[in-house]
């Protein structure tokens, strides 16, 4: 009993752990308290003065973010005084705000806009000209800062202090001249820059990559897992399904793994999914010429090649970029049903698997190493260690090779070089989503694969924790398949496709 407190929030009794603030309790109870500077992943600053609540018996309104809930406290978030405080608070924040919403990327997901519609909707009483400040400041490879839009909530300053511990940002000068910035001309260089864009409640920080690309209200969001490394951050991919184009990645809160953040590398994991870098349809070498063919035809020819060569001359080369479900379907079909015995792992030679940057990023840049090893151990009946077995695979000289190619280009820069080493094998079927793979010589067929955002399933991260790819977009390449779907097609009775 002593570890919790019960207090009244609006018309409801709320019990929370001792030490919680009213803001945390309200968040849990889904009571909306408008705020700018408070963020669940950062310390309490109490500078925006916007999360005002009425506490029975208190002389004045209190800020919910810094108000510890105590036994028997009676809190209301909807009194006329609170509404009045919001109105004036908002007017104060808007005094020098440029109101350039029509050209601002934040429009549609902006705290100022949202709260103005909720609690504002009054004409400004300011008649004096607004203070002008530096605009479009280049603060780093991924960041643009507009100091006029900034409301000085200090979230970014605290992020730099508390999360990356780089202390790169500060609030300089004071009063209406105060601006956020770095020391001198310094740039922010760490791998977590775009989190600043995420936590900025207004459009002060914008992402260089996403800037002016798309209005946020046209974007659809799907929950999935970042395929950039073995941490397995929970993310949200934002895309336009009508254009089949992926625009950005944002972290989703997952206290156990990534908290509120993700790294910048992870934000780039959607680039290869867009049409310009995608393998759109199956391709095959027919009489020395590369031709686009229907997927069933390419799979059919693979099947006949396996039948001709025999399972003992067939090998599988598998990267750790696919889901556990896909590995299981893949091994079920090729190993259990067809009797293929030789499976090789395909990874980078130079990877530093145990590297860790102290925040999120890990040196094992394959999202599902643990899942692949578990599936391999199961099918081979012995414990399998992670290693690159490409050399052994080539040395065995199989007649047919089915290769599950790595998906994310920047974590598998060795991919193109490795493809050249497969040249001597008579039938190589590449299962890949990357168009660049079609440039390789000596490949027999290319099967278009779905990307991570286009399939459901799960990865096992570095701890072996299950990371669920919850939702899937329709594929940007119409005929792309997941490994599960491809195997299902292979297992179907032979369609009568004539070559």
């Amino acid at each position, binding site marked *: 009993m002593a570890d919790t407190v019960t207090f009244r929030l609006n018309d409801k009794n709320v019990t929370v752990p001792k030490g919680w603030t009213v803001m945390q309790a309200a968040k849990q109870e889904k009571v909306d308290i408008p705020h700018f500077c408070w963020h669940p992943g950062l310390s309490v600053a109490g500078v925006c003065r916007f999360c005002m609540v009425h506490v029975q018996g208190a002389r004045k309104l209190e800020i919910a973010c810094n108000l510890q809930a105590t036994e028997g406290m009676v809190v209301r978030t909807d009194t006329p005084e609170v509404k009045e405080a919001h109105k004036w608070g908002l007017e104060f924040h808007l005094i020098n705000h440029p109101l350039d919403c029509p050209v601002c990327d934040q429009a549609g997901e902006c705290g100022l806009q949202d709260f103005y519609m909720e609690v504002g909707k009054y004409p400004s009483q300011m008649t004096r000209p607004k203070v002008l400040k530096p605009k479009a400041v280049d603060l780093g490879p991924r960041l643009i800062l507009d100091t006029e839009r900034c409301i000085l909530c200090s979230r970014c300053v605290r992020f730099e202090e508390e999360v990356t511990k780089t*202390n*790169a*940002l*500060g*609030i*300089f*000068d*004071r009063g209406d001249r105060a601006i956020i910035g*770095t*020391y*001198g001309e310094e740039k922010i260089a760490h791998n977590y820059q775009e989190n600043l864009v995420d936590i900025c409640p207004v459009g002060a920080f914008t992402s260089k990559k996403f800037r002016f690309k798309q209005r946020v209200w046209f974007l659809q969001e799907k929950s999935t897992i970042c395929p950039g490394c073995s941490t397995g951050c929970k993310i949200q991919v934002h895309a336009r399904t009508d254009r089949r184009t992926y625009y950005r990645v944002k972290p989703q809160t997952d206290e156990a793994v990534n908290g509120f953040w993700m790294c910048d590398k992870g934000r780039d994991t959607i680039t290869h999914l867009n049409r310009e870098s995608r393998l759109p349809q199956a391709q095959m070498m027919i009489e020395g010429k590369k031709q686009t063919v229907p997927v069933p035809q390419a799979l059919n020819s693979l099947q006949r090649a396996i039948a001709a060569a025999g399972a003992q001359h067939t090998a599988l080369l598998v990267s750790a970029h696919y889901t556990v479900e896909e590995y299981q379907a893949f091994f079920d079909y090729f190993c259990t049903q067809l009797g293929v015995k030789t499976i090789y792992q395909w990874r980078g030679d130079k990877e530093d698997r145990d590297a860790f940057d102290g925040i999120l990023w890990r040196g094992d840049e394959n999202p599902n190493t643990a899942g692949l090893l578990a599936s391999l151990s199961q099918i081979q009946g012995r414990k399998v260690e992670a290693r690159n077995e490409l050399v052994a695979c080539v040395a065995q000289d199989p007649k047919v090779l089915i290769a599950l190619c790595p998906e994310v280009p920047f974590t598998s820069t060795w991919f193109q070089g490795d493809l050249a080493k497969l040249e001597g094998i008579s039938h190589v079927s590449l299962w890949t989503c990357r168009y660049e793979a079609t440039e390789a010589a000596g490949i027999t067929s290319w099967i278009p694969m779905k990307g991570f955002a286009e399939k459901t399933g799960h990865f096992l991260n570095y701890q072996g924790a299950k990371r669920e790819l919850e939702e899937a977009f329709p594929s940007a390449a119409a005929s792309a398949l997941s490994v599960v779907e491809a195997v299902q097609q292979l297992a179907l009775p032979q369609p009568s496709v004539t070559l």
Partner: protein
Amino acid sequence: MDTFAPDLQEKIQSELTRYETPRSAILPVLHLIQDYYEWIQPDHVAWLERDFGLSRVHVQEVATFYSMYRLEPCKPFRILFCDNLVCAMMGAEKVMDKIRDHIGSFPEGKCPFSLQGVPCLGVCDGAPAMLVNKDRHLKVNRDNVDAILASYKV
């Protein structure tokens, strides 16, 4: 010289241990530096980070927040003009405009004066009041200010 003078270093060090965190000592440390070198130079901020472990951003935040820290080299004559209520009522604003004109009349880079508005100088009976370095001038007005300034020559 690429660090503070040894005697100043000692003083800075003793300030840094006076408070719970070194960050709390930024204010007095900056005063020490300003008293020693007349103004706070970018190098000084860098040295504070390198030699004393104070974040440059934290130091610069403090230095830019308070108006009494000088972040530019001093002119030979620093005018501190009271812009508080009583002096304002006695026309300080207009006299300051006149001083700005005076400053503007020098060729670029040749002006020996700097002008800063300050709160009360404690001589409201002599409003409007100003200090030029350590000299006190009372009842400064549009007519006599040019003559006062003209008496200061480099």
